């Protein structure tokens, strides 16, 4: 039993070692981090006791950055270098950048994604977001006392591929291993569902600072199944602030404001909006050009009538999701409110009127998403308790299509399809000897390519030269559990793997991200090496443990020779892990991964074969 010896003296990890994992809500206005400790989810505060970190990053001359409350305080004095609501720019190109953001910052159009000009040069929204994530990561590692094995980062359900990829890149820049990108309303449902052991059909109404999501989920016997999701990725509490700010400015009859005064006006509008949650009226101090303020009285009625149009805009996606799920309002068991903006009384009233019942608000709408993400992170990290047997089935929010003749879209994956999902499509050449072709992938519901969001253009190269129509190229579009797209292509008649060059229409290329990572460590080469080493050690640890567990369960699936090969690879990695060269560890990880590839496939086959036999049936 050579295999058993492996997990003996000195090397074995404790069987129920708790792996540190967190859930992060990377919000438009605020961000926060939560974890599960002693089986209970909790939000982690900073050293002054604050849980919410304002999603604001200030760049200082000289290269230092300030994040959070301190940065927020500098908003009106240093508006151009103090970036707020950067989430609204994630994965956004020059044409679709938010007009409000365009007015507030010095945006530069760059390939793939806009950049924000700051005192230390142009910064991409990915880099700005990474600054926020770094602070939360440091907070978590300090308070948990160790390196994180990974994080679940939440994204609006209605985020498209480019926005999701940008979020994942930001996490990578911040040195976080992303266990999963989780949709915000789904995270909220987890937080609620596990609390109440709920069964039935639930709706989650999530209005954040900059995005609106609406999801319908069916909860039954431990399965969270998203039935439909819809939303508006450019509608949020910020828009209410802007309308009120505009009105306040008009009432005060002031001259046009400069950038700093404008930001002061916006934050005053936000303050007034928040006060109107409980008060019937509020006195706002409206900044004037050249200093000084003028006071303006705002009543709740005025605010309501100003923003009624925005409230109604929220109801359109609600109706769409109900239609998609083939449900009526009466089928909905309960509605959960998420996001700080759902505190507005007239919005709550509108939701209550539409659904004919008062919404759930038991869990703080600012924290519920992070809590759900923490619960999911805990399970994904492998800390699942024996009695904790739930499963999450989420969907793709927007249809995926291909450009066809005349600028039309052919849908290949419909919206609300359960992920992961794949679709294979066959293409052929239309000219003799043609060796390349291009495919344009778009996301959206409209029929014209120009009305959808361009995701990527794929160049298929290396097609064998044949007569027109003879080559058959099978292209597989795979959407993974994070909702991210990847593409593979193969020529069918010759079996030649066609070369796929992906040119994302938006987002950063791998090289760009790598360069940013490098740039971040320019002044700290030792720091970079230390981190790379630590990361490889964590990866090595994870792989050794996973492989040992697999061997303990299914060693009988291996021939003696195969088992010995895996044995040797584990032993080599155990030795490499103790060294100081991260590249050596990385190489040993790759050897072990390769040695276990077939084993992984066989284990899954076995799991499927036994899925419906034995006692496991009863557990569902």
């Amino acid at each position, binding site marked *: 039993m050579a295999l058993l010896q492996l997990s003996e003296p000195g090397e074995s990890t404790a069987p129920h070692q708790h792996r540190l994992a967190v859930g992060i809500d990377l919000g438009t206005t605020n961000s926060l981090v939560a974890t599960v400790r002693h089986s209970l989810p909790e939000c982690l505060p900073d050293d002054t006791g604050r849980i919410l970190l304002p999603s604001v990053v200030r760049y200082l001359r000289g290269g230092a950055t300030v994040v959070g409350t301190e940065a927020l305080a500098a908003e009106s004095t240093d508006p151009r270098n103090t970036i707020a609501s950067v989430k609204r720019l994630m994965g956004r190109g020059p044409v679709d950048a938010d007009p409000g953001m365009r007015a507030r910052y010095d945006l530069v159009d760059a390939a793939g994604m806009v950049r924000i000009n700051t005192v230390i040069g142009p910064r991409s929204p990915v880099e700005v977001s990474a600054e926020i994530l770094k602070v939360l990561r440091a907070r978590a590692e300090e308070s948990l006392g160790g390196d994180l094995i990974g994080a679940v980062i939440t994204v609006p359900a209605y985020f498209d591929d480019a926005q999701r990829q940008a979020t994942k890149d930001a996490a990578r820049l911040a040195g976080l291993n992303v*266990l*999963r990108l989780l949709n915000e309303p789904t995270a909220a449902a987890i937080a609620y569902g596990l609390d109440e052991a709920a069964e039935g059909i639930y709706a989650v109404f999530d209005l954040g600072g900059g995005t609106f999501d609406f999801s319908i989920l069916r909860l039954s016997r431990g399965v969270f199944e998203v039935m439909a999701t819809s939303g508006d990725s450019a509608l949020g509490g910020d828009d209410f602030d802007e309308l009120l700010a505009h009105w306040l400015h008009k009432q005060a009859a002031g001259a046009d404001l400069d950038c700093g005064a404008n930001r002061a006006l916006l934050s005053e509008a936000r303050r007034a909006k928040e006060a109107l949650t409980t008060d019937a009226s509020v006195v706002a101090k409206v900044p004037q050009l050249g200093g000084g303020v003028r006071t303006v009285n705002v009543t709740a009625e005025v605010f309501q009538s100003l923003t009624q149009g925005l409230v109604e805009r929220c109801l359109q996606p609600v109706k769409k999701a109900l*239609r998609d799920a083939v449900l009526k309002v009466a089928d909905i068991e309960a509605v959960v409110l998420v996001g700080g903006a759902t505190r507005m009384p007239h919005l709550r009233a509108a939701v209550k009127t539409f659904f004919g019942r008062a919404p759930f608000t038991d869990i703080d709408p600012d924290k519920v998403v992070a809590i759900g993400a923490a619960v999911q992170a805990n399970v994904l990290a492998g800390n699942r308790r024996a009695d904790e047997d739930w499963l999450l089935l989420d969907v793709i929010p927007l249809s995926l299509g291909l450009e066809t003749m005349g600028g039309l879209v052919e849908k290949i994956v419909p919206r609300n*399809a359960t*992920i*992961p*999902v794949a679709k294979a499509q066959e293409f052929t050449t239309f000219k003799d000897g043609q060796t390349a072709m291009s495919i344009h992938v778009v996301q959206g519901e409209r029929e014209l390519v120009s009305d959808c969001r361009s995701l990527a253009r794929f160049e298929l190269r290396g097609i064998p030269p044949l007569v027109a129509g003879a080559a058959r190229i099978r292209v597989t579009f795979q959407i993974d559990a994070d909702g991210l797209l990847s593409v593979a292509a193969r020529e069918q008649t010759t079996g030649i793997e066609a070369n796929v060059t992906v040119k994302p229409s938006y987002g950063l290329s791998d090289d760009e991200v790598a360069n940013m990572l490098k740039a971040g460590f320019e002044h700290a080469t030792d720091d970079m090496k230390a981190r790379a080493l630590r990361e490889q050690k964590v990866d090595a640890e994870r792989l050794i443990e996973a492989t040992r567990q697999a061997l303990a369960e299914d060693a009988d699936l291996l021939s003696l020779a195969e088992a010995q090969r895996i044995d040797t690879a584990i032993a080599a990695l155990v030795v490499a892990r103790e060294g100081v060269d991260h590249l050596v560890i990385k190489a040993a990880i790759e050897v072990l991964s390769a040695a276990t590839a077939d084993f992984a*496939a066989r284990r*899954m086959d076995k799991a499927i074969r036994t*899925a419906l036999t034995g006692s496991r049936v009863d557990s569902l």
Partner: protein
Amino acid sequence: MQDYFSLFHLPEKFDLHRAALEAAYRNVQAQVHPDRFAHRSEAERRVAMQWATHANEAYRALRNPVERARYLLARRGMEIDAERNTAMSHAFLMQQMAWREAVEEAAGNASALQRLEQDLQRDEGVMLDDLQHALDDANDLAASAELVRRLMFMEKLRSEIDDALAVLDN
């Protein structure tokens, strides 16, 4: 990868209990879903994604009766070439035209559209019963194929009615 019925350990028949399919699907996903392997090696994560994708595809195909029938027919060597093979009985073609006219007339009238949708659903129910007999009892591939093509037309018509209702909703 296994065929859809073996994957879910279900008999290869058109007649299928929705609850049994659902339970089997959840059971398989509980074994293979990528969330179960997030902390495992890359090889395991890749295999999990492939299986979960396969399970989703199988579930989607078997859940929808018309898709299920197409799949059964394909496994018996009969491909439904919907675009090229439009041969349908004269009576059904006349019926199609009558329905199309009815949809056009009902446009803009929600209750008329809903009535029409109910009529369609009733007729679809009859066709599905016929299809079950043709596939499971008689193994009459030609008759099954024609029924599938008819039902595909009905589905399309129903989605047009849905679209018309959606427009009225907004």
